[in-house]
């Protein structure tokens, strides 16, 4: 996991996704080919850090490593550039987590490898209010 994380850490810290040089469409996670026009002319692009919730769920049965946080919210966030990101929504008043809510990205501890292993940081979203 340590090397797998290190390889794409900028994607986790800064939401660096893809931009199509041909048609300008932007994506996160990054792509090899443009989903809109099919072009292979793809370059890295930092995503905007704000968007809105398209849909959300509250997960009660977590994956290993996420037990302490359960239940927690996950959402499909449509960023202001149209890219869609799957991410947790944290530190928000319960009633504010709704389809259509405006959210902003922040960096949090995503996974921790026990007490002696590494800490892996990643993006999560917070409702703007």
């Amino acid at each position, binding site marked *: 996991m340590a090397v797998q994380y290190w390889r*794409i850490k900028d994607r986790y810290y800064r939401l660096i996704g893809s931009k199509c040089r041909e048609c300008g469409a932007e994506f996160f996670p990054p792509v090899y080919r443009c989903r809109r026009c099919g072009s292979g002319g793809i370059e890295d692009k930092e995503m905007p850090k704000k968007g809105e919730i398209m849909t959300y769920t509250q997960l009660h049965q977590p994956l290993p490593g996420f037990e302490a946080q359960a239940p927690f919210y996950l959402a499909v966030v449509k960023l202001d550039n149209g890219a869609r990101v799957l991410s947790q929504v944290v530190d928000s008043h319960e009633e504010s987590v709704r389809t259509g809510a405006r959210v902003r990205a922040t960096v949090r501890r995503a996974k921790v490898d026990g007490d002696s292993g590494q800490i892996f940081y990643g993006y999560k979203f917070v409702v703007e209010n």
Partner: protein
Amino acid sequence: MPRSKVYVSSAGFTKIGDQWGKSLLDLAVEAARGALKGTSKVKPQQIFVGNMFSAMGARQEHLGALLASALGLAGVPSVKVESACSSGGSAFNIAYSLVRSGVLDSALVVGVEKMRDLEPEEVSLALAMAESAEYTQFVGASFAALNGLLARYYMEQLDVSREDLSAIPVIDHANAVMAGHAQFRKAITSDVVSRSGMVADPLRLFDCAPVGDGAAAVLLVNDKTASRSKRKMAEVLGGRIVTNEFSFYEREDMLDFNATREAFVGAMAQAGLSPQKLSFAEIHDAFSVVGALALEAMGFSRRGCGSKDAKEGKYSEGSDLPINTFGGLKARGHPVGATGVYQVAEAYLQLTDQAGKNQVEDADFGITHSIGGVDTTSVVHVFGKAS
């Protein structure tokens, strides 16, 4: 190119559930022997093993050779096929294609999954491997969470109620009562579904297929081989695998299961059959919302009406298109890599009048539908009675 006719000549399968006393290989051998029983004249020319997570579940790969050797068939080419929860369906499709094209005269397809040896969170991780390690597993989204996101979107965008969503699990449980191999054989009410424990809001326990162990096997033969037998058979009339944009939330319209639609249309075209001719459909309802969207994608229900139509009785036993005649994924069970082959075995039972108390009257044609991921790989096969 000359094409053979292809038949399912026999099937074998284990009961689905907590098979503590049987290993992955025990289950696979049991199912395979069931399919090979009474077919001593036929030695399969190739074996395909459908399985999703033997590595994580049993620290075991190389299932093809493992099973061939165990069956006393060392020497026969044998490989594992994996496409997440549609592994069994894909294994069947590849076998079907090779027999149809004349490369093989016969093939044995075995789907097997051992889930119960793992702790629940480990099963969750194994299933999550159907989705992106770096961007889905990493953010803590389990496979159920993805379907929860889909379910809320479905309910909010298309005005589907909690009660609507509960309809398909109710049908599954009703059909499994008389199914000997089913994991859960108790009928339930809509309320039971709607009030069960929360898994990934809005999906509750009874919206989700259970964890279970099982193996199913079918033997495929071509017309040349089939003519030597007096057995009743089901004919495979068509089959397609279609892949989709990998992450469902990146698709233009999340509520359009286009891979399922294309697989269905393609398989039906290959069969030269119109949808009205179908007598039953074994659909992949790993989650209630997935069953609904599959029915809509295949055109049996209009957009947003999959669950609502089920609630009105459109897919119940005795209707024009009964679904999941032995209980589907929710009640018959879903030992993931095996499910696609269970579905074929069930279609075979229906079309050879061997379905007992689950028999669909005058079953002429039927389909099986298997999904990996969230309509990420979709596999549809069409079956008919052997002429």
